[in-house]
């Protein structure tokens, strides 16, 4: 399987690579978001949109990638990547009054969801975010697959496409079930 990570100039991108290596996924390319061309992506089987600073609107390429490949390739968005998926389908973001940087929280997951196979219903996850998807703005085609102990949307999946967004960081050492979540995406 050929995997592409689109790197939004983040400092956790190589933690994602290391997480993939730990589950024996080695055919991975990392390309920075301003060095990728849409046509190049066709050669890959699955796409991961990395976390990153700022807002999805700072990187229009993310929306273009989702637009072009949402129906043909599995896509996993992490943090900023998750927010890019939500915004592509018309959702809005809210700036958190208390931002969460380096915190670990309990979240409730839908154990029927693709990403949460073989995972307990409550898991500890690492968070780095100032923005969150506004639950009331989500269209019906996106459903919430986990929420935090502060009722913040922690992940979403598309009802028809193999398209998933996670607000927390599976690649963080604060997320013990990160490897299983990533395996579930690779097996999806």
């Amino acid at each position, binding site marked *: 399987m050929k995997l592409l990570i689109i790197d939004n*100039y*983040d*400092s*956790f*991108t*190589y*933690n994602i*690579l*290391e997480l993939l*290596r*730990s589950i024996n996924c080695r055919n991975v390319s990392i390309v920075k978001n301003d060095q990728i061309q849409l046509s190049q992506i066709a050669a890959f089987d699955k796409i991961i949109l990395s*976390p*990153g*600073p*700022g*807002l999805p609107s700072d990187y229009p390429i993310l929306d273009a990638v989702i637009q072009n490949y949402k129906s043909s390739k599995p896509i996993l968005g992490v943090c900023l990547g998750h927010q890019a998926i939500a915004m592509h389908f018309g959702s809005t973001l809210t*700036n958190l009054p*208390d*931002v969460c*940087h*380096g*915190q*670990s929280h309990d979240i409730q997951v839908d154990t029927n969801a693709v990403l949460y196979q073989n995972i307990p219903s409550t898991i500890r996850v*690492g968070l*780095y*975010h*100032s*923005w969150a998807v506004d639950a009331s703005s989500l269209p019906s085609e996106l459903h919430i697959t986990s929420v935090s102990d502060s009722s913040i949307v922690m992940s979403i999946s598309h009802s028809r496409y193999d398209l998933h967004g996670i607000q927390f*960081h599976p690649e*963080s*050492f*604060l997320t013990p079930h990160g490897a299983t979540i990533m395996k579930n995406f690779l097996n999806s």
Partner: protein
Amino acid sequence: MNVSKIGDMMTLSEWRQNVNTLGNNGTPFLFIVDFEMKKPLVCTLEDADTLGLLYHVNGNTNAATNLTQKTSPIKFESFPMSELRFKKAFDDVQLQLQKGNTYLLNLTFPTPIETTLSLEEIFYRSKAPYRLLHPDFVVFSPECFVKIHNDAIFSYPMKGTIDASIPNAETIILQDKKELWEHNTIVDLLRNDLSIVSENVVVTKFRTISKITTHKNELLQVSSEIMGHLPQDWRRQLGDILLKLLPAGSISGAPKSKTVDIIRKAEGEDRGYYTGVFGVFDGHNLDSAVMIRYIEKTVEGYQFRSGGGITANSDFQSERQELIDKVYVPFV
């Protein structure tokens, strides 16, 4: 390699090639890279003396050990920057944290000092595992950048200190949530950096306590250990490996690229060699430091540069105090 005097600059690409060659040949060398990566230096350990460079890296040194103690009283006075200037920078950084452009940012400023000691005397008298004397500056750093031993690379992020004399100091610092969040961030950042150059990256120690003795008091320092496995031929790509890790995570922040942009705007001037790195390759292994605890000679006199990590939970007054408190020399 021709480095005849300290003023001979090389490009970053020349530096990288020189380091790769020295590593591949097993030639011991000393390297110094500034924060902006504009003035990298490398020389064989044999040449360090002639270039006016004295190093001390965990006991590996080219400095004389029988130094003479100065008997006259030492004058050491500092003149902290205005509260207003620090407030402006601090508020700018807080806005960026709230906007999600950074999660952790190391903000630093120079403090003018007056002292009767020369840079050389400070080099000899200061107590620190990593010390460097350069014609223009002196470093006495407690902080490791990376160590490479056999085929393993180690990093030791340090975040969080407390006065050891406070009752229950250890429990207080370990239970402090803001300290924990900041430490988590630096651990994830350094896991990432080691994952760029190595594999099987693991956190081998998390938030362990060590005691530091200064001339003023005893401090408890919280640190972690992260380890990764390098490819067996790491020595011949040592220059590439070191450059991929720069600037050091502990003195920039996360995410690194955007955070460095914010630092440049908030600080308004180059840091130079301060918060750069220096280290020694002994022919087999490597040990190196982040150049914090730093005094430089300028046209206006001596400047001591210091700083601290700013997060969304940082308090303005205590950050300013930390910047001021760090302006001291841990004398022997």
